[in-house]
C-alpha cells in the first residue's frame, strides 16, 4: 500500500510540473498575441494607403490593363502556405494542412498542376514528407516578423505569376477572427480582384503620373501583392498565439482536474493504509491478551 501511495504522489508532482509549464506558455502566448495584434494594426496604414493609390490609378485611368488584374485560364496554381514553426497550438497547423490537402485533391489530378511555397517549419515538414511539390520555403521567422523575412519568397511567388509560371496564386493561412477562434482560409491573391474604392469616383483627384499611369501600376501592383502576403503572415502569427493560448489554457485546466483526482486517490490510499495499520495493531493486541 505504501508503494501505491508513493506512486500517486509522484504522479501528482509530475502533473504539477506540467501544469506550471503549460501555464507559463499560456501567459507567454497571451503577451505575444497582444504584440502580434499591435503589429498587424501598425501595418494597416501601409496596406490601406496602397489600396487607395491603386484604386485611384485604376479609376483615374480607365482602360489600363495589367496582367495582374486579368484572370486567365488556369493551367497551374500556386499555393503560398503560412504555417507555424512550433507546435503545441492545438489544431492550428493540422486544420490548415487538412484543408489544403483536401482542396488540392479536389482541384488537381496530378502534382504537375500546382506548386507550393511553404512558410513555417510545420507546414514544410508535413508537405515534404508527403512529396508535395515545394518550390520555395522559409522557416525560422521570428515571433514579430519583419517585412524582410517574407520579402524574398513573396517576391518569387509574385514574379512567377507575372512570368506566367502560375495562372493563379492562393494564400493559405489561418485567419484571425478573435483570440479563441481561428479559421483556415484560402484567399486568391493573384490575379488581384477588383480593388475597391471607398470614396466615390467623383472625389477622385486627377493625378499627375510620373512616368505614366501604366508604369506606376506596373511598379506598385507587385508590391501590393507582397504587402498582402506580409499582412497574411502577421495575421497568421496572431492566430498562432491565439490558438496556443487556448490550447495551453485547456491543458492547464485538465492538469488541475487530474491533480484533484489524484489527490482524492492519494487520500483514499492513505486512509486505507491507516485503517489497515489500526486493524493490525488491534489484531495483535487481541492475540496477546
Amino acid at each position, binding site marked *: 500500500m505504501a508503494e501505491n501511495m508513493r506512486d500517486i504522489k509522484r504522479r501528482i508532482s509530475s502533473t504539477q510540473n506540467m501544469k506550471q509549464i503549460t501555464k507559463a506558455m499560456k501567459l507567454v502566448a497571451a503577451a505575444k498575441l497582444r504584440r502580434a495584434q499591435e503589429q498587424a494594426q501598425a501595418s494597416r496604414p*501601409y496596406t490601406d*494607403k496602397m489600396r487607395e493609390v491603386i484604386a485611384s490609378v485604376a479609376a483615374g485611368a480607365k482602360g489600363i490593363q495589367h496582367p495582374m488584374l486579368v484572370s486567365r485560364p488556369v493551367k497551374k496554381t500556386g499555393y503560398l502556405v503560412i504555417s507555424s514553426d512550433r507546435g503545441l497550438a492545438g489544431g492550428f497547423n493540422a486544420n490548415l494542412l487538412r484543408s489544403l490537402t483536401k482542396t488540392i485533391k479536389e482541384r488537381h489530378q496530378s502534382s504537375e498542376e500546382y506548386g507550393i511555397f511553404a512558410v513555417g517549419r510545420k507546414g514544410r515538414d508535413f508537405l515534404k514528407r508527403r512529396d508535395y511539390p515545394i518550390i520555395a520555403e522559409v522557416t525560422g521567422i521570428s515571433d514579430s516578423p519583419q517585412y524582410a523575412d517574407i520579402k524574398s519568397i513573396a517576391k518569387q511567388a509574385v514574379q512567377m505569376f507575372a512570368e506566367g509560371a502560375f495562372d493563379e496564386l492562393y494564400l493559405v493561412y489561418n485567419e484571425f477572427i478573435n483570440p479563441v477562434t481561428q479559421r483556415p482560409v484560402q484567399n486568391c491573391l493573384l490575379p488581384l480582384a477588383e480593388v475597391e474604392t471607398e470614396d466615390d469616383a467623383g472625389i477622385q483627384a486627377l493625378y499627375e503620373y*510620373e512616368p505614366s499611369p501604366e*508604369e506606376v501600376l506596373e511598379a506598385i501592383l507587385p508590391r501590393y501583392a507582397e504587402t498582402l502576403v506580409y499582412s497574411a503572415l502577421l495575421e497568421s502569427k496572431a492566430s498562432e498565439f491565439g490558438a496556443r493560448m487556448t490550447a495551453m489554457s485547456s491543458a492547464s485546466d485538465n492538469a488541475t482536474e487530474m491533480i484533484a483526482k489524484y489527490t482524492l486517490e492519494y487520500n483514499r490510499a492513505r486512509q486505507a493504509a491507516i485503517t489497515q495499520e489500526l486493524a493490525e495493531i488491534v489484531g495483535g493486541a487481541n492475540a496477546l491478551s
Partner: protein
Amino acid sequence: MSTTQLDIVTPEKKVYSDQVDMVTARAAEGDIGILANHAPFISPLQVTAVKVKKDGQDFLIAITDGFMEVHDNKVTILAETAELPSEIDVDRAIAAKERAEARLAGKKQEDLDFERAQLSLQRAAVRITVGQSR
C-alpha cells in the same frame, strides 16, 4: 509659410508624420520638390535620401523601394524601409558598402548578382549619407 502634411509609412510602422515646409525626393524622372498645395502626383521613388525641410531646418531620411503620393496637401511616402538619421548604424552601412563593392569587382555586368550588388551598394551609399548627416 504654409506647410504640408508628410507621412512616411513602411509595412512595419509609421516612421514619420508631421507638418513640414518642403519635401525633396528623386522621382522616376528626376528630383522633385514638393511645397504646400502641390498638385496631385504619383511616382515611384529611386533609392535615395529624401530631404525634408521643417522650420527652416533640413534633414534626410533614407528610403528604399519607395513610392510617393501627393494629394490634398498631404504627401505620403510608402517605402519598404525608411530610416531616420538617428536609426542608422553608419559603421554597418560602410561595411555593407565595402562588401557590395567587393562583390561588384568580381562579377560580370550581365550577372544577376551584379544587379543585386549594385542595388545594395546604392542602398548602403544612401544610408551612409543619411547617417552622417545628423
